[in-house]
């Protein structure tokens, strides 16, 4: 396993810039998730790393060796030893599961080799070696695709939306099986997805791709609690954004005076609060708000609130454990726990 490095990689199609200045490092043996909306350039980035497309500028290094740069080095896809798990698995329909997994192995090992059994067991598909792709479920197809990618000991593995189109239960199960296999093999991997939960639960680091640029690359925890701007904050989760006034480690807004983390100039700012930071008390102190709507998500409930303050009305949302959630029409007092983050106010 080797580490992957992209230095200032850029790609455009005709006039349209698809990727600009991508700097990305995936350390040896870890998984980085690239999170982006559709059309953000995720698939193009994968294809550049795979070698199916040529970058216009910048370099791509795999294990310290340049595999692509603007001066003309372009290692062919088949010579890069990068495993690839395509969107729907892309299993060869004319081969059995075992033959699919053995596809990338040397001829002598292709038939019933120890490695085929090993990787199939690794992804929990040990019993399916002789079945055919159309006989197994969508989730199982993804696992076999991963086993096929891992079998020839690649330098790294790329996963393109590996869980898309699976139903919720199967998704969790497949995700766990994939993560376990990648961890067991100490695989350097890059996963692209548009699903925030998937990116943050799988990636040691998450890189947010926005309009062809990397907006932020950070651990899931930092990304969620200290996103670089309001857009990223909203992209990675629900956010309440309020105007405020920052002074020396604290910020004043309609929800009172809140503790601030992170750097920022004093003065007029935007305050970003996660809905689960906002507590709703039936009696006590804190700003007084009216519950106008509730959306039930099982364990928790998203509560819509309106808050009148100095002749202005603010629309907020707060997340509560479902058994504690208030009802529509109730009045509650809002209390913010933990620290918040601020951004310069829009001029």
């Amino acid at each position: 396993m080797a580490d992957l490095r992209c230095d200032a990689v850029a790609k455009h199609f005709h006039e349209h810039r698809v990727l600009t200045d991508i700097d990305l490092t995936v350390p040896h043996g870890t998984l980085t998730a690239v999170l982006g909306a559709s059309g953000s350039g995720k698939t193009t980035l994968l294809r550049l790393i795979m070698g199916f497309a040529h970058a216009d500028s910048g370099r791509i290094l795999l294990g310290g060796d340049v595999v692509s740069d603007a001066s003309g080095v372009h290692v062919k896809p088949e010579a890069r030893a990068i495993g690839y798990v395509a969107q729907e698995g892309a299993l060869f329909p004319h081969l059995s599961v075992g033959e699919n997994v053995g596809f990338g192995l040397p001829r002598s090992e292709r038939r019933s080799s120890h490695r085929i059994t090993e990787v199939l067991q690794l992804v929990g598909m040990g019993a399916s070696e002789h079945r055919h792709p159309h006989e197994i479920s969508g989730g199982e197809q993804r696992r076999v695709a991963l086993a096929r990618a891992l079998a020839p000991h690649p330098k790294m593995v790329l996963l393109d939306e590996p869980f898309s189109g699976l139903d919720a239960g199967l998704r969790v199960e497949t995700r766990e099986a994939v993560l376990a296999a990648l961890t067991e093999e100490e695989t350097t991997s890059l996963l692209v997805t548009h699903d925030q939960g998937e990116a943050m639960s799988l990636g040691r680091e998450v890189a947010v791709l926005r309009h062809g640029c990397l907006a932020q690359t950070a651990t899931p925890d930092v990304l969620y609690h200290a996103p670089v701007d309001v857009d990223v904050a909203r992209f990675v989760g629900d956010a309440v954004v309020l105007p405020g006034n920052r002074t020396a480690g604290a910020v004043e807004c309609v929800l009172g005076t809140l503790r601030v983390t992170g750097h920022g100039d004093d003065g007029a700012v935007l305050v970003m609060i996660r809905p689960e930071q906002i507590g709703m008390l039936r009696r006590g102190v804190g700003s007084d708000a009216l519950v106008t709507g509730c959306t039930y998500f099982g364990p928790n409930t998203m509560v819509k609130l309106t808050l009148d303050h100095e002749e202005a009305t603010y629309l907020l949302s707060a997340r509560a454990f479902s058994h504690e959630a208030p009802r529509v029409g109730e009045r509650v007092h809002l209390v913010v726990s933990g620290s918040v983050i601020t951004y310069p106010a829009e001029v």
Partner: protein
Amino acid sequence: MVERRGGGRSAPAGLVALGIVVAAIIVLPVVITVVQAITGDWQEATDALTGSGVLGLVRNTALIAAAVVPICGILGVAAAWFVERTRLPGRRIWALLLVAPITIPLFVTSYAWATLSPSFQGFLGGVCITASSYYPIVYLLTSASLRGMDPALEESARSLGCGTWRVFHRVVLPQLRPALLGGLLLVALDTLVEYDAFVGIHYPVFANTMSSLYRVSFSSSGAALLSAASALPCVVLLVVEARVRGNADYTRVSHGSRRQAVRYELGRGRIPLMVAMVGLIGAGVGVPVWTLIEWSLQRSPQALSGAPAGIADLVPASITSVLLCAAAGLVAIALALPVAVIATRYRGWMATLLERSTYMSFALPDLVGAAALGYFALHVAPFLYENIALLVIAYAILFAPMALVGLRVTLGQIEPSLDEAARSLGLGGLRSFGRVTLPLARPGLAAAGVLVFAFALGDLSSAQVLLPPGVTTLGTQFWADSSTVAFAAAAPFAAVMLALSFVATYVLMSRFGKVRGVGGI
């Protein structure tokens, strides 16, 4: 009996009944010929069997087929792969020129090769003419299959360390198998009963000998017996191909977003490749066009005077040909459509039987099939005898397999879920077909019609038997002139046929395998 692909409903009884009617119509000439053979004079039949050097003819025909089938397979697949998978400059033009030979009348090509050099008389010429005219069948089918292939399969193979050749050999070729086998089957069947390709050269094959026997007598039982026997290899090939292909239905397992497959850089290999392709196109298109120009420039009295068909016949013959072939295209679509729907949507022994029986058109030499229909008209339906409608029906029957090919490729692209959506909105099967499937398949219908049009335009033998007295077509007039070596007089007829062929090629290439509203495969 006839189950829906992927399990579920059976085919509606009405559709199956329609399919059975179509199969019965298509098999009719074979049945008539077999009956003639059985009820005929056995003495005459045995004389024909021993006297005409049948074994030599069978051997000649088998040799041609054995040479032509692999050549067409290799040329068709290679050309399709280079056009669809490499950065060949000017791909659209190459594609058009590569397909053009299929629409050029074979007897024109035959005379063209024959007059090119005496060394093309015989086996070599037969192989050149047949191979250079039939490889586009394989090309059309395999290139449509290449365009429909999920690019992720090839990318996965490359990510697993396979180079160009190994990706082709281990992933692309197995996926191409159904299309390739289907194409080779058509080439083999067509070659075994080919007649027109050999009119210009002196290479006795089964079909042209049969045809001369038939020209002597409409119902020679000896010739009937031999012709009925010639249906045997056809049946054997149909069974073998169905067995070899099995239930292989390599449609995509996945339904991810469809994007363009990665094209390989050709680098320095570009020049030799383009030279080879020019050679191939030269054989298929260049030879007939060049010969035509040469004929037009001949000024010898022999080339012009005494020609049975003069320039005055050109306009009436053109009009007859265009109307006749267009009508044949429409009727052939109507015949092939029920079978195409059954073959793409349902499976089971009945579906297979109906689909296979359509190919029985190729069981007999065209002239024998046409003669059988003439015999049928004379004895059963006198109103059709010496009526041009009978020739339209004959063309539709003889070229129904080509229509079936065009329809199947397009219908196979249409997701059954669309039809199911229409059903869920309250449409009956027939209305759903009329409002969803048929409009989507329109380009495929056009392609199928044009294929039949081109084959009908290139027919000589059926017209010789079934054309009412006094009516002429481009084909018959061309033949009348060229068989009396009045090549300059024949040239204008060939020129109009070539022009029609090129128009047909353009329509065919812009429609084949396409579904309306989809960016296209």
